[in-house]
């Protein structure tokens, strides 16, 4: 644990980052910006896992494993999303959310 920094302060920072991510997710109209917001949300949750593991149960490692798995899933998700975005841009020349109406078939 960090000397002089309580768990409340770190949880405050991660909460604020999480809600900034939610705000970006709801207000931006661009697929890549939405992806950036999702990364913010996932990162806040990863820090929460690790900090709770370190401060409350220091002799276990579950939080570390879960955060590693979250990072792996986030990487896979980003790669897939970016390939979908690039493919979409090739077909309709736009990455705005409102223009993507043709993904159903």
């Amino acid at each position, binding site marked *: *644990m960090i000397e002089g*920094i309580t768990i409340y302060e770190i949880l405050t920072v991660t909460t604020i980052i999480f809600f900034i991510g939610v705000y*970006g997710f709801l207000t931006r109209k661009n697929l890549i910006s939405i*992806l950036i917001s999702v990364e913010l949300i996932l990162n806040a949750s990863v820090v929460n896992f690790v900090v709770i593991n370190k401060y409350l149960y220091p002799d276990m490692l579950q939080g570390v*494993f879960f955060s*590693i798995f979250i990072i792996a899933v986030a990487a896979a998700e980003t790669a897939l999303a*970016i390939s979908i975005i690039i493919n979409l841009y090739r*077909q309709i020349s736009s990455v705005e959310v409102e223009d993507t109406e043709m993904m159903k078939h």
Partner: protein
Amino acid sequence: MIVFAIAAVRNRKMLRSVIYLLFVLVGIAGIFFLIDYNFLAAVQLTVYAGGIIVLMIFSVLLVHHIELELEVAKPLKQIITAITCLVGTGIVLTNIYAHEFNVVENNISTTTADIGSRMLSYEAGGFILPFEVISVVLLAAMIGAIVIAKGKKLTNKNED
């Protein structure tokens, strides 16, 4: 870090907001270093700051003109969303501060060897099965990304 996060979601130029996201991710890696999980900080730096940021910069450069200003939501919708997010932050923070965490004072430092042996152990508390599953997921995601990014283009050419 919070300032950079706000800048990442508020900035209207794509490339700048990706760079602000990079600063946020490096700051989170700094938190991991501070609480003595060196392996996790290294993973964060390589996977996020190395891989995902480069992917995003690639896609931004492929998709946008750099100086293009993005359109954002209407001001009314922005204000409503901001108020909702502030209320949510307030609720979560009051809950956090109302809860008593029984913090264990400790100075245990976890080595990478610990993490590796626990992750690959077959005994109770080992994480071998999720490890294998996540490797399959990564492989499927890679193949899927290649297929999506490449296959549609070929069919398009055929249609043209």
